[in-house]
């Protein structure tokens, strides 16, 4: 993004926030319909410590699930590429699991793993795992037949082909999957928390709805959104640092 675009983006954001503030204040909307931006910011400041603690819980769930999911996704994709017979059996099963929208698993995962952090980590790992797995597999499959045949004719083994040909070809796609998965990991953690949890931003949202504190709901949403952006930015920055393949 160049400087002009950044300035324009800032202007756009400010305009929309100003419109929101004017609407909420001008129409005197009650907090349960739409609170003003300034009210939300005040609530974030006021409940700083509570929100911070909740963000830590959600962040921990998302990050742990993310790491597990990412490793599992890449690992399973690698395994299926190296062991062809396994692929024929396991891929349909994995695709079947993936055909269920990820949120539909959350009630079951909550019953299995309880209301604590474990169920959230499992859900995040599931969502991240499949995102990364599918992009890694697509990446590994991207090399064309002729290059594989060529390398084979030079006597390269399965591992050699994987290491020198498939992995480099797949890296951009894997990186894209990892980036998309950041935002998804936090959203899935929060969605699962809202169905049942002992803590976290989703739990704050749930509790605030029951306690009729809608400014607090928005404050938690704001913190969640910031957390997502930070995570996305972090992974993006790491990717640019390690961009040795381009």
């Amino acid at each position, binding site marked *: 993004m160049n400087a*002009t*675009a950044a300035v*324009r*983006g800032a*202007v*756009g*954001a400010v*305009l*929309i926030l100003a419109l929101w503030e004017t609407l909420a204040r001008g129409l005197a909307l009650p907090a*349960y*319909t*739409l609170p003003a931006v300034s009210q939300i910011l005040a609530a974030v400041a006021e409940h700083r410590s509570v929100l911070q603690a909740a963000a830590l819980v959600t962040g921990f769930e998302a990050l742990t699930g993310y790491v597990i999911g990412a490793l599992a996704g890449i690992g399973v994709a690698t395994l299926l590429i190296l062991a062809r017979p396994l692929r024929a059996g396991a891929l*349909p*099963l994995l695709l*079947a699991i993936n*055909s*269920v*929208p*990820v*949120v*539909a*698993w959350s*009630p*079951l995962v*909550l*019953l*299995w793993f309880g209301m604590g952090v474990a169920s959230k980590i499992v859900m995040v790992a599931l969502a991240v795992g499949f995102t990364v797995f599918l992009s890694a597999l*697509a990446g590994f499959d991207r090399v064309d037949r002729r290059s594989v045949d060529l390398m084979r004719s030079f006597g390269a083994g399965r591992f050699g082909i994987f290491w020198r040909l498939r992995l480099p070809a797949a890296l951009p796609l894997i990186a894209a999957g990892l980036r998309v998965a950041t*935002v998804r990991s*936090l*959203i899935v953690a*929060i*969605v699962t928390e*809202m*169905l049942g949890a002992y803590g976290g931003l*989703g739990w704050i*949202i749930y509790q605030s*709805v029951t306690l009729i504190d809608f400014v607090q*709901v928005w404050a*938690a*949403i704001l913190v*969640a*959104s910031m957390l*997502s*952006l930070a995570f*996305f930015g972090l992974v993006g920055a790491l990717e640019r640092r390690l961009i040795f393949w381009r």
Partner: protein
Amino acid sequence: MNAAAIAALRLLGGVILAGLVWEAAVVGFGIRPHLLPRLSEILAAFAVTPGAYWAGLQRTAAETLIGFAAGTAVGIMNGVIFFRAPLLRDMLLPVFIVSQTIPVIAFGALVVMWFGNTLFAKAVIAFYLTFFPVTVNTLLGLNSVDPRQVALLRSFGASPRQILFRLQLPMALPQIFVALRLGASLSLVGAIVGEWFGDNTGIGVLLLQAMYNESVVALWAAILCAALLGTGFYALVAWAERRIVFWGAEQ
């Protein structure tokens, strides 16, 4: 026999085989029904109240389709507008990106308040999840069109409108379809989550009822419905892609 029939038969065979493996695994390994009930038990649950599952399937499918269609239309429109007006793109795209970091479930209560308990309210959530990837990919696709081809058409006297519909949008279609395949699953997620906010019918409703009654069989029945819908819708989009982008989609 033609190729399509053979493919259908193979699919059917695969599904039956998977079902048998499931049943045998649960019985053979003695898996606790609390974790995974036998497939036959789940099918029996369908047989007891087929109407409820069928109604839920239809309702969720309708919400998904409407949200998906609206998300596609708005997404493509946004993409074209952003492509034509870089000022708007720079101002609004960051806001759109931020909007996508908000867990939509947090909005559920608001959407119910604004739109009531209608099918429309769920479609709005499905729309919210769909329009963004379509916007981004439309923009990407339009940007990737070779400027020399545009210049060529222009030299033949083509209007910007003609260039858009004859060259740029068709060239962007493969990219757009990548987003549509993603949107197919996202819109279903939106519809299901939307149904968690007080409704009578839908797969999301069945999921919640089963969860709060701690009925694992009913839960799996709802999950199978969701899988069926997810697969069917994805296949539909993939089929449309093969027909429309016949000159070569990614994948």
